């Protein structure tokens, strides 16, 4: 990795950052939605009581972290889909740059704007709906690994976007991905609350590392140790990076761009 490489992909990250800043409306809508979710679920958890490993307050903090990761990760897959559909992909492919790398860098630029704003929303919302913050060390662990998880999730979104080279419309695939991440990632409820077989199935997917892994540090019984979550994230990042590279190589060979 040399300085030219860093400058090149840094420029993509900067433009993603600038483009996100230029559209504050979308960010405001995300913040409003985040508050709504926290408000609704805090009422729900207060109504259903608490378990031996979590109170209604810790459940709201858990949700604040999972939603923070989910709402921060840019939906770059739909931008890739639009590029393929419009044919703008022709410009990107002809450049001396990795198509996948450029999109990941650009999405990380977007993430760099969103993640702090959504984290502030998570903390303010959590404080409002759940009460005092969990211990600083707990929050630090969840936030550090949550930030890494958001980057890994963004890379998965890029990989999903590459399917547009074959499918054209990736919305159905994304819906399946999203629903699986809700259940197998433990978006609303920690994975340890599900039947054991769900946890066993989830262990073979990246979802626990992306959501329940970082968020469960606010619970009394975390999903795994910080080192284990870190290892899982590194493994799934390596898998998706290799996978996305192979998928793109095949997609570029079979690309069809008809009509002008």
């Amino acid at each position, binding site marked *: 990795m040399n300085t*030219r490489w860093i*400058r*090149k992909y*840094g*420029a*993509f990250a*900067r*433009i993603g950052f*600038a*483009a996100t800043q*230029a*559209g504050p409306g979308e960010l405001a809508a995300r913040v409003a939605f985040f508050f709504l979710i926290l408000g609704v679920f805090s009422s729900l958890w207060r109504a259903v009581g608490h378990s031996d490993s979590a109170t209604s307050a810790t459940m709201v903090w858990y949700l604040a972290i999972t939603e923070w990761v989910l709402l921060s990760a840019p939906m770059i897959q739909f931008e890739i889909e639009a590029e393929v559909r*419009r*044919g*703008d992909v*022709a*410009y990107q*492919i*002809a*450049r*001396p*740059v990795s198509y996948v790398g450029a999109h990941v860098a650009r999405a990380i630029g977007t993430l760099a704007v969103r993640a702090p704003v959504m984290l502030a929303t998570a903390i303010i919302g959590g404080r409002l709906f759940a009460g005092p913050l969990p211990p600083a060390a707990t929050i630090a662990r969840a936030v550090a690994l949550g930030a890494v998880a958001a980057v890994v999730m963004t890379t998965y979104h890029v990989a999903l976007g590459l399917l547009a080279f074959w499918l054209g419309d990736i919305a159905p695939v994304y819906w399946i991905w999203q629903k699986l991440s809700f259940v197998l990632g433990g978006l609303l409820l920690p994975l340890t609350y599900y039947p054991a077989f769900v946890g066993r199935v989830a262990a073979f997917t990246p979802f626990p590392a992306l959501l329940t892994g970082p968020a469960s540090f606010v619970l009394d019984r975390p999903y795994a140790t910080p080192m284990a979550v870190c290892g899982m994230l590194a493994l799934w990042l390596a898998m998706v990076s290799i996978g996305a590279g192979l998928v793109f190589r095949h997609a*570029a*060979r079979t*690309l*069809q*761009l*008809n*009509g*002008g």
Partner: protein
Amino acid sequence: MHRFAVEIHELRKRFRTRVSRGAGARARIADLFAPRTQWMTAVDGISLSIEPGERVAFIGPNGAGKSTTLKILAGILYPDSGTVTVDGLVPWRDRRTLGFRVGTVFGQRSQLWYQLPARATFDLLAHVYELPAATRRRRLDAVVEAFRLEALLDRPVRHLSLGERMRCEVAASLLHGPRVLFLDEPTIGLDVTAKAVIRDLLFEQSEAEGTTLLLTSHDTGDIEEVCDRVVIINRGRILLDTTIAEMRRRYLRTQQVTIQAEPPLDDVIRDLYSTADKHARDTTEVAT
């Protein structure tokens, strides 16, 4: 420098497209579960050489294979067979290296960031093409001056007119000083004035920097005012490869001009006759 900027030999490319069985429910269900496909030949054995600095128009009807050829030359599409070199490189194999030496302009696509000023895209491209800081400033100044972009550079692209945006698009493609520029319908949708501006700028850039141009267009103005050679293709095959002057001499002996007037000319002529008639009558009355 290589003898030929572009060299193509027996280039072929086919696409597979889905074919519908019909409009009925049964046909649609069958299409869903067992789609029928057929091969469509886009490029059928094209051979062509272009010397450095030449300006070549690649023309033909829709679906003739112009854009497909251009995309193969730019390294975007893979051919089925044939050999191609652009500035001595095989486009689909040496895509990254070739990217530094060629530029592309697609009239119906955009490379500019819609919500940001054009300057942001120029800055990004300068990094993509790894231009050192001094070269970046010099090239940016050069294209800004040549394309008269001073007033446009800091306005969000979404606030630019189509003509202004196209000036920025072409300038962005020339920022890294490509040796070969591929242009796919660069003036499509522009008004007469904007077309003239783009043509002048392309011609001037090619003259000043010796850039080889290969452009596709349906507009004869683009061809006559920018290029000095024309290649006509249809159904993926070259029909004619000659100079613009020779084409004019051999094939364009007559010109047909169609004038459409509003109101229709018949009405105007009728009015003229009646005015002249009235004038003649008035003059006669005065005389008597």
